[in-house]
């Protein structure tokens, strides 16, 4: 592969196209394949040669691909991205002309993946030179991917086996990756709706489904829909192949906070297995109602939590921590009429700054409103009066 001539290469592609060999053709157009390092293929102007051997629009597509290999060899990802755009555009023209056949799906997967990767690399190169708006190239790449998605989603004529709809989940996943990176999560919604209403949604490959549920789960987290997030992320974690430790760890980073909000604390064993001991102190603090330790733990690993985008959700754990702390006060005093002062003392012991009775009332009122405490505050008696039955319902039962 690393030494074939340009003619041999073009002949192979031509044959693959004529024989509808989607997978093999995809390899010949993918940057994961060794042919991209072959200097004989890195021509500055391959158009003529391509036109001699290939039919349009494949000639343009392959010519652009070869120009891309040239650019990549020079580490010019901005150029590479521009040419990859042409590859995808030409491909799409061909793809649209394939009526009731989907053999080219693998090619689509390969070229769209490379498009996204080059967009990433190009942006990084531009940033280093202080040029270009962050997210600009990724947004353009996303528009291209959406065009491909529309072609797939609107394939209503072909039978199930030949349908282009099988490409929808892969493209959704690519688009999710971009939307999460450029922080435009609202753009995920139409994709999720399209997949949800598709009759193929449970039949995509396990790997695609895991990736899909991972991103949709993260979106649910962002929308504060924690029950849905837990379902989706748990599925992704359970079905993610055990050899993909890195991916399992990534899923866990988002699954853990959601589970903790629902009252399920991870074991230390699990945290050690996946190298997520940053969560260890957080877990301990929340279950003990130890606000001091929680604040310390959040502060200590702030950079990690912020980078993963879970810092804000972990802050929500404070409410659960208050609930656990106050429950301790209740268990200690063994009465159903608890003086507000006792809670104030507990908070001050946890070194919460500037807290007074007014704020204690506010915190308790909030917990009552959220269903974490069953009872009411009596201002006249300065007491929290709790229900005699189950005053602190289990966290998992509170939405």
């Amino acid at each position, binding site marked *: 592969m690393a030494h074939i001539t340009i003619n041999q290469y073009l002949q192979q592609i031509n044959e693959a196209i004529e024989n509808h060999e989607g997978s093999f053709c995809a390899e010949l157009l993918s940057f994961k394949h060794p042919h991209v*390092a072959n*200097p004989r293929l890195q021509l500055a102007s391959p158009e003529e040669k391509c036109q001699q051997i290939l039919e349009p629009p494949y000639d343009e597509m392959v010519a652009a691909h070869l120009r891309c290999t*040239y650019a990549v060899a020079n580490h010019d990802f901005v150029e590479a991205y521009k040419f990859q755009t042409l590859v995808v555009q030409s491909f799409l023209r061909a793809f649209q002309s394939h009526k009731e056949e989907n053999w080219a799906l693998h090619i689509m997967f390969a070229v769209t993946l490379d498009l996204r990767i080059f967009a990433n690399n190009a942006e990084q*190169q531009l940033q280093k030179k202080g*040029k270009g708006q962050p997210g600009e190239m990724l947004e353009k790449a996303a528009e291209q991917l959406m065009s491909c998605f529309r072609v797939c989603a609107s394939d209503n004529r072909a039978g199930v086996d030949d349908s282009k709809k099988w490409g929808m989940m892969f493209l959704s996943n690519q688009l999710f990756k971009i939307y999460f990176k450029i922080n435009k999560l609202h753009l995920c919604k139409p994709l999720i709706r399209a997949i949800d209403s598709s009759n193929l949604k449970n039949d995509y490959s396990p790997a695609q489904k895991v990736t899909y549920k991972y991103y949709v789960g993260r979106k649910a987290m962002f929308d504060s829909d924690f029950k849905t997030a837990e379902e989706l992320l748990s599925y992704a974690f359970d079905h993610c192949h055990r050899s993909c430790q890195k991916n399992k760890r990534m899923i866990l980073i988002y699954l853990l906070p959601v589970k903790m909000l629902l009252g399920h604390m991870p074991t230390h064993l699990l945290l050690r297995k996946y190298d997520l001991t940053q969560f260890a102190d957080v877990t301990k603090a929340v279950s003990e109602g130890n606000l001091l330790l929680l604040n310390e733990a959040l502060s200590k690993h702030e950079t990690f939590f912020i980078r993963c985008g879970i810092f*804000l959700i972990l802050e929500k754990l404070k409410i659960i921590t208050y609930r656990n702390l106050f429950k301790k006060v209740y268990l200690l005093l063994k009465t159903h009429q608890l003086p507000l002062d006792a809670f104030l003392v507990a908070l001050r012991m946890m070194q919460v700054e500037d807290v007074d009775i007014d704020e204690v009332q*506010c915190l*308790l*009122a909030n917990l009552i409103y959220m269903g974490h405490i069953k009872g009411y505050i009596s*201002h006249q008696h300065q007491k929290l009066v709790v229900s005699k039955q189950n005053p602190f319902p289990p966290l998992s039962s509170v939405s």
Partner: protein
Amino acid sequence: MNRWTTARITQTQSSSAPSGGQRTQRNKERCRSNTQKKEVEEEGGQGFGKERKETVPRASCQTMCPAQELRERESQNRLHHFEVVPGTEAFRKPSGDPLRAVKEYSRPAAGKDAAKPSDLRLPDVLLRTVCYLIDEIVGSPSPHPWTEVYSFVFDRLRSVKQDMIIQRLSGKDCVAILERTVRFHIYASYRLCGEPLRIYDPRINDTHLQEYLSWLFDCYKTGAGPYPNQEEFQALGLLYNLGSSAATQHVLELPVRLRQTPSVKLALAISQAFLAGNPVRLLRLAQKLDFLQACALHRHLVTCRRHLLLIYSHGFSSRNCRFPLDRLARLSSLEAPLAAGLCRAYGVEVNQHNQVVFSKSAFAEPAQGRLECKLYHGIVSEKERGLAVKSIIHGCS
């Protein structure tokens, strides 16, 4: 197979690093001339000197309003009363005052050459224009209602923005203009709160304010600096967009040095209190804000006070509840009569002894239009005392 992925993942290597691989000298030269050509054609960016000026539109207008436009609008009687020679307002065709006329915003259209140098104002003229608008229009006493002042300044600032975009202005000049523009829009969002929709639409103000903020933050991020006002604006942005995960995440990702500044720290603490559903703490912290920060926050006060009444309706819900109105007023940063009015709007009962009788079944959303944010502006307006609008917007308060 994975040997070749290095071609893709070497992000650490800059494109100017010597590239390996067997290529002929001819190919190398072709590559270099190709990339050079691309750089010249590339739009935007800094530090390209000669090549850049060849493609970016040049500005040469030295006045706030291009001469041609002034003549045209004067002859078509389309001058604003702020732009005419004083004393000629009542004439059938008032005369335009070149010292007061300001280029107006015009929608880009096919066939219209927006890049004519004589129509594009130079960067220092743009800043001068903005300062004029603030000093003479916004900050000066006028017989005209402030809604008119706002409309005029809004439009003229939009035209300044247009000129900035066309000539790809960036750096310190751009920041100085944007900072004042943002302050103006934040102040306006408070000052015109409650005006009828046909005169002032808060959503339009919001849309433009978000664009200006976004551009300003981009300048801070990609520019060389230093930007001494950055802490002020990061805090304003967070307060204005309280509750937005995107805005909060943006601030969390700022360098530690910025996050530790007093303004940003306070804004973050307020944000935390908001996200934790702790209105008592939020309102207490809000006392520490300065006037403009309070303007930025003010539209969230409604949500905050509503939440307070809601959770207290649940938390204190009992037949014998007698919560002192005065205390509630203090917690809500309102005078007692206003606090009583707010309770009534949400269906919360206040008895004749000035005690609030919270009940979770009583709380209800106010009827359409019954709740006027403007009535409850005390927490903001009291900070305005003694401040001149001019200095608020220039940032010298």
